């Protein structure tokens, strides 16, 4: 995927984590694709770089699984956009995935030891 601004300290998203982050973002309410990407980037203090090209297939996948639902609506600046909402199944999925992810992260952190090791 095309990455830009190489050389800076932003990192590409790990495989599979994008889904989790999308679900998490939607907890705050309906959002369109561009808004989701923006929210992930700002939420991670611009550390995580969302590949916009991968975002829409991911949304499509989540929609197909029934974790999110979509509807055309109007954005803040009056543009037509497709808005996504979290479904009940999506909320459940988010809980399991988040738990898994936290455990994995803490396990890896445990192995890596304190920063600077």
């Amino acid at each position, binding site marked *: 995927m095309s990455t830009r601004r190489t050389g800076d300290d932003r990192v590409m998203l790990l495989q599979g984590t994008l889904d989790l982050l999308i679900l998490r973002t939607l907890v705050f309410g309906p959002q369109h694709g561009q808004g989701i990407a923006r929210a992930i980037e700002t939420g991670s203090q611009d550390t995580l770089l969302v590949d*916009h090209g991968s975002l*829409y*297939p991911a949304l499509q996948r989540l929609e*197909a*699984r029934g974790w999110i639902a979509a509807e055309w609506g109007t*954005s803040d600046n009056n543009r037509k*956009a497709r808005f996504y909402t979290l479904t009940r199944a999506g909320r459940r999925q988010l809980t399991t995935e988040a738990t898994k992810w936290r455990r994995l992260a803490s396990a890896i952190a445990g192995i890596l030891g304190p920063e600077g090791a």
Partner: protein
Amino acid sequence: MSRRRSDADFAREIDAHLALETDRLIAEGMGPDAARALAIGRFGNPAAVAERFYESRRIAWVDHARQDLVHAWRSLARTPGFTVIAVLTLAFGVAATTLVATPIKAVFLQDVAVTDTATLRALSWTSPRRGFANGLFRGPRWDARLAAGEHIDSFPFAAYQTIEAEASAFEDVACWRPATEALTPSGLVRVQAATGTYFQTLRVTPLRGRLFDDRDDRPGSPLVALAADPALLDQTIVIHGHAFAVVGILPRGFTGLDPMSPADLIVPYSADALFPTFQRNDWSQCHIVGRLAPGGSWEQSRAQAEVVVHQAILSQPPATDASEPPRLHLDELSVRFSNLRRATARPLGVLVATVGLLLLITCANLGGLLFARGRARHKEIATRVAVGASRSRLVRQLLTESLLLSALGGVAGIAGALASTPLLPWLVSELGGAPASGLSLSIDLPVLAFSMAVSATCGLVFGIWPALTATRIDPAAALKHAAGVSPPVRARAGKTAVALQLALSMVVIVGAGLLIRTVANLYAVPLGYQPEGLVFAETNNPVGRPRAVVEETLADLRALPGVSVASVSQWPLFNNTTLRFPFCIGGAEPAVQQLDLAYAFPQFFETWGVRLTQGRDLDDGAAAGVIVNETFVQRFLKGQTPLGTTIGLGGCPGRTQAPIIGVVADHIDRQRVERVPAVYLRYPRAGALYVTTYAVRTAGDERVLLPDVRRVIAAHGIAPTGDVRTGVEYRDSMTRLERLIARLLVVFGALVFFISCLGVYGLLSYTVSWRVPEIALRIAVGAERRDVVRLIVGESMLPVVFGVAAGAIGAAIVMRSIDTLLFGVSTFDAATLLVSAAVLTVGASLASWVPARRASTIDPAPALRSE
């Protein structure tokens, strides 16, 4: 939720995204063009994204199935040995199923090739008496059938004519005569005769040309025929010296209404009078089929026809025994199929059981191999569980593998079955003892679907358990084992599969052994005549000048090159109808009066190869005399000199009295009959000779005489009632069923033996592969190669011995169902059981020796290091 979304909608969303992103970048202070460029740049190639959208839009399970299939294919391709063994054994099972399902379907599910049968019925009758039924076979067997209330479905032609003319409840009525064989210059054909109303009644249409009607069915009209073989259209066929023009081809699959007696040709009934076998007033000449008139009722038409038939009986002098008219019945046309079903039920039953066993064995084989495979892939599966594969997904993948295997096996098996379809007509005619052309025996879609379903069921049923077992895994423990410790041996399921296969194989092999012994015993029975070198023909002679025809024909036969002796008799050597025939010996009638009685020409015994033990042959001289067989002497003349003793025939002292001039050795044509007393008389000088059997003997190969004998007989206008046959053919026809089943069981026995050995081999190969570290360790600590071989072979022997023992018990039970087929051997035959057990055990040990040998050559150092 999983609504399909259009490509256009997706494109609109991408446009919206780019617009929003551009807006944002402009808001951050970029120029519009630069903002737009950056937004597009960050997005990447929109076309590629649209492509990915297209991919993602597909239904998830289709995707997964495809992935599973690709994965299964790769995984099977990695182990070609396993795949070939599994596919091959399954292919055998599926091929056998397909081949057997076809005749079963044809015999048990097929019906007459007439579509509109709802208002069609075949007429039949029952009666406690049958004095009125001239020409019907007589004898105790027929009496019993009538007494049992069996429906007899033949009538005299006169009955048909009256029903046709007077029974208004029938819209159409037709009469047909079962096919009789006729020799034509091009070979034997089966000719059926039917009235001109036949096709109108059945409402069938010709495949090509036209059918015949009443105009063709008049004496004197041009002779026409309809053929089943399309190649015969517009040809002329000569039957008994009369030329018939083939004007039409019968509908596809239609060979008349009796599958036991299918017709190659159908001719108008009036033409039938030209044939020597024709007797118009016989009760065996006409089968009647009628179509109910619209608005008519079955009971009304039945009652009408009953009255008419009674009139027909009374109008036909001598109306003996007409006091009690027969009761008429209307049967469904399919009733004739039940005769075929009865005739083939037993052999087909054996066949179905054997194929069922074969199928079970192949499925058990597949199951066993899958178990072993799952076990050998322990580590791979553990790894995949550890990285988060769900169990259901893993089971699905393993099942996909077994389903792929069964699909491959199914396709291979069907290909094999299609390649062997030419065997089917042979198989069915051998099974039913009737020509199979009345059945459609092509492998069709329903049969193929059935075979594929069987194969898939096998893959599912015998795949699910191994898949569940293989994935019941604790990844932590499994991976720990991978680090050096052998997993606990849990091969019980695989061993069960091997034991099951061997038990089932044992049943088939014991069956084959018993039938082989039966056939050997049958052939060991002395028959008392010499079938080798003999050719004979049973015939009906032309009405009018029989004696002259017989003598001319006999002279021509004697003149044939290679013929050493020829003779004529009433029956072939054996007629097997033991009549109660009153006769007088020593001035009294014996209590038991069953006699085989036949007229013969001189040299009859020499021709048939029966030894004359005392006295002399029948001769043409003036002095009358009879010949009896040894059973006659033992039964009635024990301790006396038979020669010169006078016998009175037809009561006491008897209408004819003649001295015994010779005694012949006992002779039988089949092994399962009792020897009966027999008396042979010289043919009366001027007697009717309608039914005769011609026989010739040669010192050379009798088969070369067949065409000559056929030619001589046809040249004299004689109608054979069957084909001209050799003595060897006749002898072998008596053991047809036993030999056929023996042959089938031998073929299937070899097949299941082979499959079971493959099963043992496959299972042990896997066992060895997962036990490499253990074996390496044993070798490293000093185990001899021999010991390793003994260990592996020894472990496989437990299920083998168990399976063989269980199979022996199973065989003893199963064989009881075919004990009437056996001869001179009991269902529980120690020798057969021992040999079968030995064959299976030796085969299984050899099959296990190969992987055991491989295990013993493991080099311990690298094997241990790789763990």
